[in-house]
């Protein structure tokens, strides 16, 4: 408490907005969700954003996923007519002066497929060539773009065998079997198509709740290492559970050396797939205490983050949800068990009137505690007419972490938006975490951290025996723990680099548990630097 109080005295600027909303003239993307009177559910669900350094110039670039053109009613076969550039997904290269250039066409990413309505994005270097690849999820077939390393991408979906189909939502790259190659987990929402669509809410004429449509399975693709993937959903046990998945996040919650998978389901119990270490998973959500609210209620799980919010070294889970359902905070108590801590952490007050989507636990004020950011906005675009206390457009939630309890802070945004995806990373390489948030019917919001005087450390992992980016590693820095991942949030992918706020500390002790099992320790690491750590080759 004293430390925090002193910090506030030392940092009078903390009460000011944490972020500056940066207008980027060349970032001319509009998320075209194409709402229609038909209330096709897909219209309110996109879209993802990724922060990646696709050309390895040290600057984060932005990839945004677009929806598609929806007609009222849709004709069969469905055609979202994404040939018009306004419906393209977009890749924006960051220039040295902080501006962005649209490189979509020259990068070979212009063609999204007319049968696809875009949803989300996952980032991972699946072939360990040092360049991040892009996986786009859709309502329709998904697309894997291989990064050629020369500023261009090639659609390798067919060869890789990862098209999935149906309605995919969040996805993520994860090395679930620690073989050094990134596998791919794809969540799917439900069995739905525009032909089977309907409206709900009687005279209110709204989008239907998920319970109106059958649940479906998620997909796990195993990376064979030759540029192809094998669908192991059945064999691994992932397909044994049908859900209505929107979000996914990875971490090794029971410290057995294998990455586990949390899936946020909408309107039903949440899934926690425990990695058995032999290529199979067991869904343990209920017995682990993460399936329901503390009252045993089903949740409208949307986004998810699987990181340690209270610095006890164990990854916790935060799930974003609809109003009247407090965002779920599941504290990892150890021994494979979680307890519901939403009220203790203050989220009862902060979240019960909001709809949350993209979510991140990042140390925005570099005080050594991870803060919470949530992109917000109700599912229903006419919710105010039904309940004036709820809002389709909301400000994002920024909640600073005061030793495990979250307190509202000013995110710097003044105009409410229909927030959806959110990705986190240090866009301007100043050591302070920034945010890019997608907005239905609008441009992405680029929130640049105003910074301060606290120290920081950003670690870039380079796996040798492990996958090249060290995804799945557990990194401890001065008592804080991060699990290396680009996944989590909602439909989005964040900077692969691991950011740590160090507070007043000018040096750090860094301990890394690589997915290969190798443990590495670095002492007296200087603060305020971007540090690349290479995994030792020898066991």
């Amino acid at each position, binding site marked *: 408490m004293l430390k925090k109080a002193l910090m506030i005295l030392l940092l009078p600027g903390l009460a000011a907005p944490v972020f500056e909303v940066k207008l980027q003239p060349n970032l001319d993307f509009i998320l075209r969700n194409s709402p229609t009177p038909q209330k096709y559910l897909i219209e309110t669900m996109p879209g993802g954003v990724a922060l990646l350094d696709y050309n390895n110039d040290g600057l984060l670039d932005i990839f945004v996923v677009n929806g598609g053109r929806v007609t009222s009613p849709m004709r069969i076969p469905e055609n979202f007519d994404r040939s018009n550039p306004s419906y393209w997904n977009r890749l924006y290269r960051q220039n040295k002066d902080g501006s962005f250039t649209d490189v979509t066409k020259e990068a070979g990413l212009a063609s999204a497929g007319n049968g696809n309505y875009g949803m989300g994005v996952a980032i991972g270097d699946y072939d360990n060539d040092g360049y991040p690849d892009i996986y786009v999820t859709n309502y329709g077939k998904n697309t894997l773009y291989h990064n050629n390393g020369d500023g261009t991408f090639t659609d390798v979906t067919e060869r890789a065998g990862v098209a999935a189909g149906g309605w995919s939502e969040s996805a993520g790259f994860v090395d679930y079997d620690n073989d050094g190659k990134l596998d791919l987990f794809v969540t799917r929402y439900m069995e739905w198509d525009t032909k089977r669509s309907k409206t709900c809410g009687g005279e209110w004429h709204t989008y239907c709740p998920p319970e109106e449509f059958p649940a479906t399975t998620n997909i796990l693709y195993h990376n064979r290492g030759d540029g192809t993937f094998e669908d192991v959903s059945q064999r691994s046990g992932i397909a044994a559970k049908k859900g209505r998945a929107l979000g996914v996040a990875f971490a090794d919650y029971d410290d057995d050396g294998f990455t586990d998978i949390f899936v946020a389901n909408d309107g039903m119990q949440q899934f926690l797939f425990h990695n058995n270490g032999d290529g199979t998973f067991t869904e343990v959500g209920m017995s682990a205490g993460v399936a329901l609210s503390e009252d045993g209620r089903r949740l409208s799980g949307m986004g998810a983050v699987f990181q340690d919010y209270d610095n006890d070294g164990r990854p916790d889970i935060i799930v974003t949800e609809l109003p009247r359902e*407090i965002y779920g905070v599941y504290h990892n108590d150890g021994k494979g*068990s979680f307890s519901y801590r939403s*009220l203790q952490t203050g989220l009862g007050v902060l979240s019960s009137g909001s709809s949350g989507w993209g979510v991140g636990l990042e140390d925005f004020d570099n005080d050594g505690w991870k803060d919470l950011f949530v992109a917000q906005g109700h599912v229903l675009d006419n919710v105010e007419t039904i309940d004036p206390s709820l809002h389709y457009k909301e400000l994002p939630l920024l909640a600073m972490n005061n030793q495990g309890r979250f307190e509202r802070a000013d995110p710097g945004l003044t105009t409410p938006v229909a927030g959806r995806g959110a990705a986190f990373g240090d866009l301007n390489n100043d050591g302070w975490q920034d945010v890019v948030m997608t907005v239905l019917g609008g441009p992405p919001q680029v929130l640049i951290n105003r910074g301060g005087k606290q120290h920081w450390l950003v670690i870039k992992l380079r796996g040798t025996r492990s996958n090249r980016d060290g995804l799945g590693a557990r990194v401890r820095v001065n008592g804080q723990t991060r699990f290396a991942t680009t996944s989590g949030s909602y439909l989005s992918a964040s900077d692969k680099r691991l950011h740590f706020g160090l507070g007043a500390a000018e040096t750090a002790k860094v301990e890394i548990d690589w997915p290969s099992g190798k443990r590495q320790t670095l002492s007296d690491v200087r603060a305020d630097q971007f540090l690349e750590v290479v995994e030792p080759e020898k066991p």
Partner: protein
Amino acid sequence: MITIVAILFFLWQSPSPEVLQHMRAGAEAEKAGHFDAAIVEFQKVTELAPTEATGFARLGQAYLEKGDYGRAIPPLQHALKLDPDMAAAHQLLGYALLSQGYPAQAVPHLEKSDDVAALGIAQMEAGKLPDAVAHLVTALANRPNDPDLLYYLGRASGLLSKQAMDNLIATYPDSARTHQAMAENYYVLRQMPQAQKEFKEAIRLRPDLPKIHLELGLVYAGASQWPQAEAAFRTETELQPGDAEAAYRLGNALLQQGKAKEARVELTRSDKLLPDMPETLYSLGKAAALEGDNAAAEKAWKKVIELEKESSLAGQAHFGLAGLYRKQGKTAEAEREMGEFKRLQAAGTPPLAPQQ
């Protein structure tokens, strides 16, 4: 539908055989549902015996049974002219007038009958709402759960309530009670900003009105504005220290904010004021668990289960216990409680919405 009450066949004062024949023929036709034929027969009776009330009453009844309420009225009125104390004719005329849209005229006739239900309905239609409610309550006591009576009682009560409120608003437009009434209407319509505004105005005018702060607190709670809800509930508990609901609501608002210690104080107080309320005990268990007092949480939730047995709240208590035992490493107990929770869930009682 109006029930037609059979008229007692009065002893005829020296009826002629011809009159008796038409009377019998009319009664048989009526019994067979041939109302037109019955009307012809009873018409004959009134022509042959123009000073006898019974013939006119039977003719009116036949018209009523045919559904020709308008034509039923003159013979029934004539019957009463001949015999003003004929209760059955009063009753039938009351039905006919009520059916024709003359409830005020129907009331004095129905008052002379023993059909309090019809009287209540006529009084409601005539705008005599307090009398209507009283008679419908009496009727309902004789015919409990009669859907028609329940409907009319609900309607009459609603109209009476509206009348009182309209009167209040018209007479004292700026009174605290008027603002409270308007606020309650907005609350029902889920127009929360307006409800909030009206409750605040009522409080400004009469801050000591019982339940007014509680109601404002519920508006805040409905919008998940827990600090504001806490303040309102707290004021209510200060004004009404013996109100168990106010204490429960305050405890719950505190709980939503993670203020477990303070929540326990209020929830415990509520439990003392009104013991064994399952919702209070459930929240008390949550607050205790939040504070890490596992023994108290276990005790409260077990009590909920004892009281509620198979309800959704009992299911939630089982779920809470499962979490508690899991945390304590009591795997078998946790599994048992989870099993009970799942059983109740499968039984189709969905868990209650969060308390607000």
